[in-house]
């Protein structure tokens, strides 16, 4: 019997994986990918909860999250391109000009 818990656990696992990816990878693009994993985990939670409470709002929210994720990915990648032009590197630690 698949309960809400199963979906929540799955979502939590995916979210943790995404978080770990953000901190452990040293390639900006991979970091962005990890962020997408996190967002997907959240989407899963919303849909599952929406299904549980018989509300369509869960899917609506997912709709908006996807839209925002697309916008964010576009802008983020544009930033990456601009940064790459400066330093020829995709390592986030290469960009420390704002250090105190």
């Amino acid at each position, binding site marked *: 019997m698949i*309960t809400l818990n*199963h979906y929540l656990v799955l979502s*939590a696992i995916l979210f943790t994986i995404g978080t770990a990816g953000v901190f452990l990878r040293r390639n900006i693009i991979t970091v962005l*990918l990890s962020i997408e994993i996190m967002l997907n985990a959240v989407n899963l939670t919303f849909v599952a909860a929406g*299904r549980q409470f018989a509300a369509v709002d869960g899917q609506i929210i997912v709709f908006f999250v996807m839209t925002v994720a697309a916008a964010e990915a576009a802008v983020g990648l544009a930033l990456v391109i601009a940064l790459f032009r400066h330093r020829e590197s995709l390592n986030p630690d290469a960009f420390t000009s704002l250090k105190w």
Partner: protein
Amino acid sequence: MALETILFYVLGTLAVGSSLLVIGQRNPVYSVMLLIASFAALAGIYVLLDAPFTAVTQIIVYAGAIMVLFLFVVMLLNVGQEDAAEYDRSHPFNRPFVRRFGALLGIVFVAELAWAVWHVSTRQPAAIAAAAPGSVSSVREIGRVLFTDYAFPFEATSLLILVALVGAVVLARQDAE
């Protein structure tokens, strides 16, 4: 019911496995492809959850547009393997205290999540009921709610996309020479 259980575990394993591999790969192209696989698995899970619209949107928007965009950028920048060692020495994360603290933080985080999930389960013991298919998940229903109750966020999101569009063009533009 058994089919649902089997499908859930299969798709779940696929999603988790792909995600792990995503963050474990060195080659960013492989990461992108593995993430597409993860998204596909998730789309399957959405179907299981009686959310076909969401599943299709996931494939079209996420796997079809965003990941392709990622692929474009990866190809464009053509970085290849990741070079690790160059900036490592002076990084704050390399101090032992920080690493221990980070590990502790991770454990605390996981514990919190586990507690939250357990808490939900003690309060909501009922299984996910199979709701009437038409009432919640039909596209008609989603469309109706989207354009009435959520009309303002819908319009605002269009503005957001416009801003992102302009921003992306400006940011990635080469300076006029």
